[in-house]
């Protein structure tokens, strides 16, 4: 099978092209010695089935960033039949350097000049034939977003693959990569002869929008307003979808599954319905919101506003060892931590990415919001509710800032903050959809396994031994609750609440339901029972603990797969548990000492 490496500078639409060519058939490949996920897909080219690999974006083949090292490692360890370079047509005057660096490796190469539409609008014309002549390999203008030129590009690729060329062996590439010859003059000459550029071609519209959105005083308030509106949008649209999904799953259970499984042994019935089906249901109910998040997120990301937000927030975030982009991810985390963790992929420096991933699980996600709304309604008067909710959001910010400040020495980022501001772009629906779908697929693959196992375990824990009441003190869950009593008593959490917290480890969505199972009650009766059993100080302590400790198994799984480090995952779990306990303890004991 032929192997094609897709390579280009960041922000050139390389991944858009990859998605277009692969048609969403992509998968994550395993490459020895490479620690980042490389997407690859099988593509038909010139009668060959070829494997197309999407390499990370890089500025300089001789650079020192993690991504640049990944590309070098890949090229010097794997034979490649064709290198497809993707560059941004409207920035060809400086991006051509990458094509010239690749040319020196002596591999079969072709150059795709992307964002032809934007270049045209900017008044740039490129003589591709003259450029191909000067470079010694085919050049094709394309628009990955709209698909223009893509069939021609595929045809050209087929021709290159069909021409048996001498391919530099990977070990020789390694030697060639050490040589960093001067290409400045060559680049200048080629651009001079093949590219026509207006002196000033910055998109006027982008400048005008920037004057407002990056305004020294208005910029930040507008940024918060925009984020608030996105957040509102996701919830306004997402909540009914989530309810609808829950209704469908519930109906399917009562109408189809329960009659169908009525004749099997009770324990198997319980395991299948209360364990596995509810487990999958929990994940499935997440899906509409996750899809929405990714659609909105890829829209924000592709629009160019994310880099602007980074510009606006960087001053404050720098004081906490983070940067502007980290703040955007934290905000995303207020909806759901999982996509926010995945979103940190835009960060190039690993320490910075890890520090951001460490603080994201502390943002008060929608699942925790559910628990709080329930507990507040149970324990507080209606006129206090908004204040308590606000206090919990403030606590979330406080723990994020505290964690970042405490850990910034461990995750010191050496990379300077230099970021390109792309012109504003309006992503096409197809682009948004493809991106969103990829992410959702990954999320489901991971989360399903994790949650099914977790839920089965929890079900077993509350139902064994079988001759006692489910979730009572005699069950395994009850015994674990009692086992933790010495730790949880000082923060005012009784055995019943402790079992709910164990459930909460799987997903916060289960907490309220777990309380229903534990007390054997639901609705108003449940609220009254809880209000009789615990006072508001205990309830508040329970909420603080719920806010700060590990959000859910999906977050843990994502944490591990995104950081590719079990150690990091454990640091995050232990830290959040310790912080949750200390803050709950401080609150509970202070309140009690004050006689509350």
């Amino acid at each position, binding site marked *: 099978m032929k192997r094609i490496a897709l390579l280009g*500078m960041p922000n050139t639409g390389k991944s858009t092209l990859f998605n277009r060519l692969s048609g969403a058939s992509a998968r994550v490949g395993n490459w020895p010695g490479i620690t980042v996920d490389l997407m690859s897909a099988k593509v038909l080219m010139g009668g060959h089935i070829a494997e197309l690999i999407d390499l990370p974006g890089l*500025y*300089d083949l*001789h*650079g*020192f*960033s993690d991504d640049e090292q990944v590309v070098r490692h890949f090229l010097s360890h794997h034979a490649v039949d064709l290198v497809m370079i993707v560059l941004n047509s*409207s*920035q060809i*005057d*400086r991006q051509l*350097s*990458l094509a010239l660096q690749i040319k020196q490796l002596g591999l079969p190469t072709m150059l795709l000049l992307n964002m032809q539409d934007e270049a045209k609008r*900017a008044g740039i014309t490129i003589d591709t034939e003259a450029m191909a002549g000067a470079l010694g390999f085919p050049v094709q203008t394309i628009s990955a977003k709209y698909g223009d030129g893509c069939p021609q590009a595929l045809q050209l690729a087929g021709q290159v693959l069909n021409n048996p060329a001498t391919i530099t062996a990977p070990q020789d590439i390694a030697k060639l990569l050490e040589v960093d010859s001067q290409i*400045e003059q060559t680049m200048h000459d080629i651009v001079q002869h093949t590219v026509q*550029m207006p002196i000033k*071609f*910055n998109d006027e519209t982008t400048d005008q929008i*920037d004057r407002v959105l*990056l305004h*020294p*005083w208005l*910029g930040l308030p507008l940024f918060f307003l925009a984020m608030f509106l996105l957040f509102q949008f996701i919830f306004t649209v997402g909540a009914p979808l989530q309810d609808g999904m829950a209704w469908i799953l519930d109906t399917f259970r009562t109408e189809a599954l329960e009659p169908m499984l009525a004749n099997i042994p009770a324990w198997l019935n319980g395991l299948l319905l209360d364990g596995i089906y509810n487990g999958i249901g929990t994940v499935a109910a997440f899906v509409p919101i996750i899809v929405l998040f990714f659609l909105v997120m890829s829209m924000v990301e592709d629009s160019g506003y994310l*880099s602007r937000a*980074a*510009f*606006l927030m*960087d*001053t404050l975030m*720098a004081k906490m060892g983070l940067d*502007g982009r980290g703040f955007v991810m934290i905000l995303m985390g207020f909806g759901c931590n999982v996509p926010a963790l995945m979103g940190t992929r835009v960060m190039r420096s690993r320490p910075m990415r890890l520090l951001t991933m460490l603080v994201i699980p502390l943002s008060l996600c929608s699942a925790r919001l559910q628990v709080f709304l329930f507990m507040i309604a149970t324990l507080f008067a209606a006129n206090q509710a908004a204040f308590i909710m606000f206090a919990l959001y403030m606590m979330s910010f406080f723990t994020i800032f505290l964690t970042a400040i405490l850990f910034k020495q461990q995750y010191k980022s050496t990379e*300077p*903050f*230099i*970021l*390109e*501001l*792309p*012109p504003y772009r309006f992503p096409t629906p197809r682009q948004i959809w493809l991106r969103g779908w990829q992410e959702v697929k990954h999320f489901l693959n991971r989360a399903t396994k994790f949650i099914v196992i977790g839920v089965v375990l929890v079900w077993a824990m509350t139902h064994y031994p079988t001759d006692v009441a489910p979730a009572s003190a005699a069950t395994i869950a009850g015994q674990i609750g009692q086992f933790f009593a010495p730790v949880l008593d000082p923060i005012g959490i009784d055995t019943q609440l402790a079992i709910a917290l164990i459930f909460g480890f799987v997903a916060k969505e289960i907490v309220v339901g777990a309380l229903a199972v534990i007390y054997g009650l639901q609705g108003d009766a449940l609220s009254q029972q809880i209000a009789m059993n615990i006072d508001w100080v205990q309830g508040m302590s329970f909420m603080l603990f719920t806010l700060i400790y590990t959000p859910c198994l999906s977050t843990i799984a994502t944490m591990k797969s995104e950081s590719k480090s079990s150690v990091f995952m454990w640091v995050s779990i232990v830290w959040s548990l310790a912080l949750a306990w200390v803050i709950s303890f401080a609150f509970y004991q202070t309140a009690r000492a004050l006689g509350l």
Partner: protein
Amino acid sequence: MTVLSNLSPGQLGTIHAIHAEQALYQRLNALGFRIGKQITLIRRANFNGPLHVRIGGTDIILREIEAQRIQLQAV
């Protein structure tokens, strides 16, 4: 002769020298910071925040500390 961080919004200069270690030098280079190129300061964020500059057709933001390393000649 001045450095990039001393420019006021709207001012421009020609890059004369880049005083940076190799990794940063290469990164700046790849982003279009090359000797002899014209660079314009578009805006700066409040409280010594990042700078927004333009080289040719590329807009870039960078922190003050990096901007201090870029020496300019008046145009």
